[in-house]
């Protein structure tokens, strides 16, 4: 940098900042001739220097020495003047400024200020647009700069933008920046601009994201004279979450300014340091209108159980009770259960929050909580809180109500099935209440809304009372909704009453596959004496769906009388029927059955039938079946190969042929699911020596394959796999990271 290249100007002043020298370059740039400058205070020549805080910087150098550098990204310029290049898009020249003392024997004689014109550097960038009057333009510019991560230091300025959108982009850009100087720039911004809360906030956010060690830079701000700055510092320390800040923050709890105290409390909650618990409990006990509430919240976040008993007293305070109950739910031990439950005896206790807390305690501490609650108090207050409660509150109420064996609770719970947000929970709860709840639930099973009926049907199935068969059959008679039908059928199966038998047979022809599946399941659990005959009739039904269902049912029971039908079904014209028959034939464990399965695997034209056969072979013990399975590993259809590989795992036979066929699939198959199944099967068969191919597969382009390989590596010695797993943890996608974590824990 030299004056000769025409981009640098220099002036000097005496100690009181009166200009002593003023060079030509400056005269040209500022249009102030040397004659007009010399002898005039610089602050008079440029009044805005004082406003922008720069006069003070010069004065500091003149008085205390040291060199100050003004980075153009933060200050833009020292002396306001237009760019020398008329083509520039910028309104003002950008200046890199060095302010240095002029040393004299007796001390400092004045300062020398060197100004370098760096406008061109900024002009090339979208950064020129950061000065635009239009928010949209500034936003676009900030976004463009943020995308070039090596240049994002330029965004420091935009941290002070009026628009929060621009500030957000700038903070995100700085956080992502690869430029090493960014951290310094941000720290400088915090120190110098702490009076600008928006900038401070954005800078702190950006630093927080960089996980840079910023607490030491922020801590001194807690001592500032300015209460706003102390507030921001407390806030920032909470965001940063550095435990070293706990002590200073505890000290800040006594700040004269309530706002500082408030943010210190929140910050301590975020940092989670147990040391603060005592002081926070004291603040909570003071019932200070502003501070007690956040203190209770912070205690919940810190999770220090020892202070819980002290909080019980706050439950009589209508403002603090809800937060206190929530806190107790989170941190309390079994000792707080009885006093907490006892508060439900008083009519003005906040039933919702207390119920939620008791539910949380029971979830954490186990069944003992219920007994204490049920013997300490009555459900009255909880029952009266149900009306108009939101879903979140209702959930707590339902859980706690269910601990009371009372008819009124049964009625209230049943009626809550009308609330979509807790319906499923209530259905489960009622199912567990047993027969006592049957009458009220049966009533809800006649409700006009299909979803309510469905929840009721589910609960009735769980209760399992034979009295409910009638209402469930009624549902089947008029339900137009496959999901409701399915639930009612499953419930009938769970009750297992013979009266449902005939009606259930009708559903074997239902279009919906889940309904058919449910009917098959229900019929098999009812196990009616007429079932065998009914199945045989259905093997010759017109409808392929009925024949398919017959094959599946016959498989459940392996009725000898059905074998011939099954063999015929395995040759049915409809693939759906063949598929079911082939799959179910394995249950018969007869020679003809197995040879039919093998035939299907070898030669059925439909791949889904061959795949079903491959699945069936998983339970076969005969050797011809093993050969057939190995042949299936080379089928042209990927799903046949996939299920064959899975079946090898079920057979648990690690003979040479099986292993080498599976290896072939693992290494050479084109289809990812086949490779995954092969890896998992080889693994479960305990085949070792696969380290090399697994190491390769761990980097496979397909996520399923790479994750299967990573998990399989858990079974190899750590010194071989450590590097691969660590690599996946550090550089893999979320799924690879998860798989690597699993492998490491498994190990």
């Amino acid at each position, binding site marked *: 940098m030299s004056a000769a290249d025409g981009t640098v100007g220099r002036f000097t002043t005496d100690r009181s900042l009166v200009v002593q020298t003023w060079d030509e370059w400056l005269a040209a740039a500022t249009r102030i001739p040397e004659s007009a400058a010399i002898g005039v205070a610089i602050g008079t020549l440029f009044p805005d220097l004082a406003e922008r805080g720069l006069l003070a910087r010069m004065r500091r150098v003149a008085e205390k020495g040291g060199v100050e550098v003004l980075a153009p990204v933060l200050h833009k310029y020292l002396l306001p003047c237009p760019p020398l290049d008329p083509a520039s898009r910028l309104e003002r020249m950008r200046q890199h400024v060095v302010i240095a003392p002029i040393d004299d024997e007796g001390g400092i004689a004045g300062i020398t200020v060197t100004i370098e014109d760096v406008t061109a550097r900024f002009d090339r960038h979208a950064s020129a647009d950061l000065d635009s009057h239009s*928010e949209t333009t500034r936003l676009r510019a900030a976004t463009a700069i943020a995308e070039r991560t090596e240049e994002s230091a330029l965004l420091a300025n935009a941290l002070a933008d009026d628009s929060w959108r621009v500030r957000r982009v700038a903070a995100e850009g700085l956080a992502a920046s690869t430029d090493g100087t960014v951290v310094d720039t941000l720290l400088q911004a915090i120190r110098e601009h702490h009076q600008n809360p928006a900038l401070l906030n954005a800078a702190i956010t950006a630093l927080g994201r960089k996980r840079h060690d910023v607490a030491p830079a922020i801590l001194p701000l807690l001592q500032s004279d300015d209460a706003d700055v102390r507030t921001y510092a407390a806030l920032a320390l909470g965001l940063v979450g550095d435990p070293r800040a706990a002590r200073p923050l505890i000290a800040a709890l006594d700040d004269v300014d309530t706002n500082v105290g408030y943010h210190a409390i929140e910050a301590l909650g975020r940092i989670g340091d147990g040391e603060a618990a005592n002081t926070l409990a004291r603040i909570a006990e003071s019932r200070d209108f502003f501070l007690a509430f956040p203190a209770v919240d912070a205690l919940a976040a810190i999770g220090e159980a020892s202070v819980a008993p002290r909080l019980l007293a706050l439950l009589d305070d209508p403002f603090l009770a809800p937060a206190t109950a929530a806190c107790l739910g989170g941190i309390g031990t079994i000792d707080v259960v009885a006093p907490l439950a006892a508060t439900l005896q008083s009519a003005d206790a906040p039933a919702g929050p207390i119920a939620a807390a008791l539910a949380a305690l029971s979830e954490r501490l186990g069944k003992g909580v219920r007994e204490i609650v049920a013997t300490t108090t009555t459900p009255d207050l909880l029952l009266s809180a149900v009306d108009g409660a939101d879903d979140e509150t209702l959930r707590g109420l339902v859980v706690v109500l269910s601990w009371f064996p009372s008819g009124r609770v049964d009625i209230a719970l049943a009626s809550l099935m009308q609330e979509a947000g807790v319906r499923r*929970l209530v259905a489960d709860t009622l199912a567990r209440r047993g027969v006592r709840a049957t009458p009220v639930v049966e009533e809800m099973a006649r409700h006009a809304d299909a979803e309510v009926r469905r929840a009721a049907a589910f609960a009735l199935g769980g209760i399992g009372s034979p009295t409910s068969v009638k209402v469930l059959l009624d549902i089947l008679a008029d339900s137009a909704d496959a999901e409701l039908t399915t639930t009612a059928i499953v419930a009938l199966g769970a009750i297992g009453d013979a009266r449902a038998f005939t009606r259930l047979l009708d559903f074997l022809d239902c279009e919906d596959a889940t309904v058919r599946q449910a009917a098959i399941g229900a019929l098999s659990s009812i196990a009616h004496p007429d079932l065998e005959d009914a199945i045989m009739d259905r093997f010759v039904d017109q409808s392929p769906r009925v024949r398919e269902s017959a094959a599946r049912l016959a498989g459940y029971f392996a009725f000898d009388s059905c074998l011939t039908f099954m063999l015929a079904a395995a040759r049915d014209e409809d693939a759906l029927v063949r598929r079911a028959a082939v799959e179910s034939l394995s249950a018969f464990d007869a020679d003809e059955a197995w040879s039919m399965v093998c035939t299907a695997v070898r030669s059925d034209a439909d791949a889904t039938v061959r795949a079903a056969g491959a699945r069936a072979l998983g339970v076969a013990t005969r050797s011809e079946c093993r050969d057939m399975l190995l042949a299936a590993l080379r089928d042209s259809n990927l799903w046949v190969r996939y299920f064959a590989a899975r079946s090898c795992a079920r057979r648990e036979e690690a003979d040479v042929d099986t292993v080498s066929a599976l290896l072939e699939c693992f290494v050479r198959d084109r289809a990812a699911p086949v490779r995954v199944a092969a890896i998992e099967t080889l693994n479960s068969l305990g085949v070792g020596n696969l380290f090399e191919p697994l190491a390769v597969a761990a980097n496979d382009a397909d996520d399923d394959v790479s994750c299967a390989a990573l998990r399989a590596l858990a079974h190899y010695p750590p010194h071989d796999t450590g590097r691969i797993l660590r690599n996946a943890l550090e550089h893999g996608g979320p799924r690879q990271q998860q798989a690597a974590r699993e492998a490491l824990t498994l190990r």
Partner: protein
Amino acid sequence: MTQNNSGGAGRLRGYHSELFALADAPFSLLRELIMEKTGMYFDDAKRGLLADKLSELVAVNGLTSFLDYYYLLRHDENADAHLNALMNRLSVPETYFWRQSEQILAMSEVIAPTHFATKPRAPLRVWSAACCTGEEPVSLAIALAEVGLLDAQPIEIVGTDGSPAMVARARANSFGPRSFRQIPANLKERYFEPDGDRWRPIERIRRAVSYDVANLAVPAEFAGLATADVIFCRNVFIYFADDVIRRVARTFCERMPDDGCVFLGAAESLTRLNVDLELAEIGKAFAYVKAGRRHHIERTNSAILATRTATHVTTGH
């Protein structure tokens, strides 16, 4: 303060989970895949619901486990067909005519007149982005007919949905009584004709709306549509993961014209998602417009409406 007060409600199984159990591993694989392919997100509390909905697809494909179904969805040569079936299965066909009618009227009584006043020759393009069985785009056509613009001005109304089954039902133009629960009786009389025991929009309305399949989880499928002047994207974000909503909204924002606007459902909001759209008051409704455009749009709307009212008054309307 977020305490989990659910008392274990998060771990509830589906109503018929004994038919097929959805274990942890396949659940998280499936939900990620479903989010990627459809945008829909099933949090832990909805695991049972997801199992119930998918069990039929597992059964139909002759499978016995959700894990096998996951592989099928990802790797089968007919993955597209499986994805369509999935969309159809997960789609919640809950819609009706004149739903949140203040938004429909804001489009027909404020946006459309302003559009034709400021850009006289440009067609007004209206897109219903999750049109379900068609009630929404049909309502839009009716509203435009009501203000006399439907046949008088160039207007394009497109309804799309991610579920091919929904689009097929929309194209069938046949509506049952539940669809009419909100629309004023006189509109039903004037714009529908009987179709057996159901109802069909009259020819003029049917002609005005066209349908297509478009998946909001795939920006390329709807980027072209998002250049519409008005986007109705209602009651679909409630099912989406935040990241997907953000992506969709950003695509809207990039593609829509400067004075375009987006209507969302009553329970949906973009405010906490950091997208460059802001709420503007249009007629008696709220819509999202490009950040920074609210004042301009609100001012233009009211200026145009004022001149219209004035001419209406002077011409004795």
